[in-house]
């Protein structure tokens, strides 16, 4: 399983990439493999306030719908429009083209509390 070392992880299998005051959120390679063929993504609304560890998006495989939690609190600033026509990007490129949404964090301290790559690898192995 691919676990990039420059990201932080949530126990619920989301990753974040911090870029100044913008944080990108997606799901891990492990998560996409567990979910299997992703056929639909329902991103949050731009401007929505999301709380850490609460549902921010939904991804659906052929078999089931799964909640995606926001690893941190903040305001949604952008969603990945490419997923509307090509939800399979979550399967093929979960850490890059398959990102789901970006938020402006309201409590940057929450980022520090997330799992390191090593801790996440330990969780999934």
């Amino acid at each position: 399983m691919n676990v990039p070392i420059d990201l932080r992880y949530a126990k619920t299998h989301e990753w974040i990439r911090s870029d100044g005051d913008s944080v990108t959120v997606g799901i891990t390679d492990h998560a996409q493999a567990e979910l299997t063929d992703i056929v639909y993504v329902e991103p949050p609304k731009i401007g929505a306030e999301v709380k850490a560890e609460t549902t921010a998006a939904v991804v659906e495989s052929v078999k089931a719908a799964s909640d995606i939690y926001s690893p941190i609190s903040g305001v949604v600033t952008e969603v990945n429009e490419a997923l509307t026509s090509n939800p399979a990007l979550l399967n093929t490129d979960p850490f890059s083209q398959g990102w789901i949404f970006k938020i402006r964090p309201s409590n940057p301290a929450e980022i520090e509390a997330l799992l390191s790559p090593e801790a996440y690898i330990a969780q999934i192995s």
Partner: protein
Amino acid sequence: MSESTDLKHTPLEAAHIACGARMVEFGGWFMPVQYSGIIEEHRAVRSAVGMFDISHMGEVTVAGAGALAWLESLLTNRVSKLAVGRGQYTLMLDEKGGVIDDLIIYRNDEEEYFLVINAACRELDLEWMRAHLPEDGTVALKDLGDDYAAIALQGPDSEKILRSLYPECEVPKRNGLSLLSTAEGVVPELVARTGYTGEDGFELFVPTSEGEALWNGLLKAGVKPAGLGCRDTLRLEMGYPLNGSDLARTRTPLEANLGKFVALDDPQKPDFIGRQALELQRNAGLSELLTPLKLTLQGPPMRAHYAVLSDGSAVGETCSGALSPSLGEGIAMAYLPQQLSVAGTPLEIEVRGRRYPASVTTLPFYKKL
């Protein structure tokens, strides 16, 4: 994934795990839901050939001088239409016309019938059948559910595969049944040209101990393992009902649009359990019908138990739903008031609090070119 202790195990479990299956609980059985992926497996069956473990399904033989008359009294289709070596889809109802199970019955000899019943209903079906057996000893009922391993070989290349592996096999015609070989032992090996995918294909029944060898032989011949995940999307694209989702004791086959498998108007069909209730229902007019729906715009895939709305009011809920891998569209079935079950009727489906436009369509969802 936790596995409860009373799950039943298919004789092919080791073969599934060797093929990289993801195993889940289904109808009390520990079964493969997918191997390489539901969409890929679905496409393999539509375009080439795939195989499903159907060992969880029940097999029952009914034999004896009284077999025909007894089966006529128990099943909705006319059993006497069956020539030796032929099969038919039929239903077993309770007195209220509610569906106990839908099944395939084959006549494999003058006075012998072979029934394939749903996994989740095996015990209940047998209980029902035993309770209705005549006491004069003219009907012998045998539960062979644990004696068979069964594999459904499905897809346009099925016949080619079957002929290459079993050149001695007499290939049956659609809905027919033949002996794969005259193997010694208690259980004959049967080949039925039936399935649950809408594609040409065969259902192969062999003694439990030979299941793995059959599976591995097919695998070697290039047949793609296919799990219950795509079995569900394939059958739904054809509009084939699934007992437990689309069929229930609270629904009759008339409401499920399966009237052509119910010989109400056939003068040669004797009385059967549920007939009176169905006649009453038909005379009174059906209030609801199992209705195929399609999302009209892009939206989330429909799933079971989503609310269906007409003019803003709830009129029913979906009983089966999926994203159709062949069509790339959301498809579903729902029991709806008869006046709304007309093709083209605009509806809405509620998914997580949002409403998406849908409309009534016609079956099958997937029409072959």
